[in-house]
């Protein structure tokens, strides 16, 4: 009969063999050797020349420098760690290692920085509170169990050991979801949230002396599930002094900051979000091992994994899909260049204006204050898209909108500044010298320099019309 052709019911996932607070992936690996092996692969460099805008730690083992990729960022981020060393990520295996190896200015907040790196963060925050959160970074690392000091995202972060259900393991995400008013979680939600534990923007709250005042927080006030727009994030970040994390040196402005807002951009009505596609579908696609298929735990760019993720849903060839991906990314990168340089130019005009003020320049306070407000709006939008890791692919139309607004805010600010300066008798050429070498070279203790071959020039060549970027590799 028909029923006879159905093969026997194979084993279900084995459960109840792992205790709920088992941190050690090796122990998990004894029960789930295939997943363990694939998880370990995040250590392995990936094939070169597959990705256009997410190069780095490929088989050439080059660590890409985000400030060389977008030189304007070196100017804009100057004033703290991100302006010194800021790299393309290497992979989950390197989460803690990269922190240890990076310029120490980055890790100056201390233990709190381990929030998205060590699986022990929740436990240690509960147990040791501010002693752990405020501990100098290496001291905090050394508090961790010796075997697991360098352990990044681990099984326990994403799985309930006893049931193997996927789950989340970060307090900051709980607080964030509470802000969104999100309570019920479907399986699909969880397939997004395991990633949204870390691939979200955050701030480290500060006290009056700008010292760390607690665990990581998410700027999600007034937002909701499926809609955390940049407007709300900016409003949240500018609403309270305790979200101001650094002082931009070119302008002297105390500012907040935005990091890797993958979840925020993606979930804001993108076509894949609306279609019920999750991070996991694209970054942990199933692959065949023998007669089974399992989720690829070697989380990476789909381009570096031969677009396997895409091809189950799309009949088009990998080549075709790549072309469409680049169609989107090229356009985002072009617009990001425009927005970045417009904002950097405005920053330089502030620098000049502040200098002239010291020399006695008088100015219309109202116009000046508008210029500052507009500038901040531009800056935070530029950071939002520059920090987001998909070069626009996660939500093309939204990325385009945000960048248009960034350019609009920067352009108006520039206009007001030129007017203010000219009113004071200062006549500027059209091209403002950004002095990028100053920001790009001899950075930090390692003396990092600009790497011209890593720069992402405007793929459409429009940027050249605005600013020649006279850079030579030193």
């Amino acid at each position, binding site marked *: 009969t028909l029923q006879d052709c*159905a093969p026997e019911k194979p084993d279900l996932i084995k459960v109840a063999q792992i205790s709920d607070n088992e941190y050690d992936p090796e122990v998990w690996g004894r029960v789930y050797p295939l997943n363990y092996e694939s998880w370990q692969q995040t250590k392995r460099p990936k094939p070169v020349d597959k990705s256009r805008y997410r190069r780095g730690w490929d088989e050439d083992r080059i660590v890409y420098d985000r400030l060389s990729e977008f030189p304007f960022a070196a100017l804009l981020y100057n004033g703290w760690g991100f302006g010194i060393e800021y790299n393309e990520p290497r992979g989950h295996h390197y989460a803690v290692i990269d922190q240890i190896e990076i310029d120490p200015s980055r890790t100056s907040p201390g233990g709190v920085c381990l929030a998205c790196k060590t699986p022990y963060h929740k436990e240690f925050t509960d147990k040791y509170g501010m002693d752990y959160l405020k501990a100098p970074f290496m001291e905090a690392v050394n508090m961790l169990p010796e075997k697991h000091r360098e352990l990044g995202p681990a099984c326990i972060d994403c799985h309930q050991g006893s049931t193997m259900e996927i789950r989340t393991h970060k307090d900051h995400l709980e607080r964030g979801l509470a802000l969104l008013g999100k309570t019920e979680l479907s399986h699909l939600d969880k397939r997004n949230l395991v990633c949204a534990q870390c691939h979200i923007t955050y701030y480290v709250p500060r006290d009056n002396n700008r010292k760390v005042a607690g665990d990581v927080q998410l700027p999600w006030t007034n937002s909701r599930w499926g809609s955390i727009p940049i407007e709300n994030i900016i409003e949240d970040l500018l609403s309270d002094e305790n979200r101001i994390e650094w002082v931009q040196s070119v302008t002297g402005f105390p500012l907040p900051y935005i990091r890797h807002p993958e979840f925020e951009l993606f979930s804001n009505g993108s076509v894949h979000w609306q279609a019920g596609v999750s991070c996991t579908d694209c970054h942990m696609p199933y692959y065949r091992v023998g007669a089974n298929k399992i989720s690829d735990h070697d989380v990476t760019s789909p381009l570096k994994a031969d677009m396997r993720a895409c091809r189950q849903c799309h*009949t088009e*060839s990998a080549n075709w899909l790549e072309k469409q991906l680049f169609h989107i990314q090229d356009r985002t990168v072009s617009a990001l260049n425009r927005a970045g340089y417009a904002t950097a130019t405005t920053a330089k005009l502030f620098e000049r204006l502040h200098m002239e003020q010291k020399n006695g320049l008088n100015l219309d306070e109202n116009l000046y204050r508008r210029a500052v407000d507009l500038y901040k709006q531009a800056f935070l939008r530029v950071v939002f898209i520059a920090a987001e890791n998909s070069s626009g692919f996660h939500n093309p139309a939204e990325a385009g909108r945000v960048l248009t607004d960034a350019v609009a805010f920067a352009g108006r600010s520039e206009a007001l500044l030129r007017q203010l300066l000219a009113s004071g008798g200062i006549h500027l050429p059209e091209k403002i010298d950004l002095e990028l070498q100053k920001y790009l070279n001899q950075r930090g203790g390692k003396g990092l320099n600009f790497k011209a071959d890593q720069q992402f020039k405007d793929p459409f060549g429009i940027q050249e019309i605005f600013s020649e970027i006279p850079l030579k590799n030193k």
Partner: protein
Amino acid sequence: MRRRIGLKILGIGGILMGLFLFLFFGPPGLYHQTSTPEFCASCHVMEYQHDAWLKHADHRHLDCIECHLPNDNFVNHIFWKGYDGTKDVIFFFGRLYADDLTISAHGRQTVQDNCVRCHAEMVSQMMTDARDCWDCHRRVNHNYPMVNPRD
């Protein structure tokens, strides 16, 4: 509205179902004949799905009913064969269908169960009730955009 009239007719149709069941086992071969893709596609409203199935190389060796009727046990199979079959006929000749057919919730569950039935081993490591297989395996779905991408 369309649905409601449909269901009324369906009630009457239910009576006819008995007749149908008889016919299936009566005339020689009819049971088998009404199980072939050619039979399903004999209604032009099924043409699109038939063509899509034909183009989807990997399941061309399956009859429609491998996916579209319960295959967990014989009684269930034959019940739904009679029920769905009668319903299709009535809707067809009563012109009670929309231009683009959509599958019912029950129909969807049936298909899903069949995917899992055949691919049980392959999917043994995953949760199979979280969403439809063809969310990802869109080629299996008859509505997948059939276009010829430019290179």
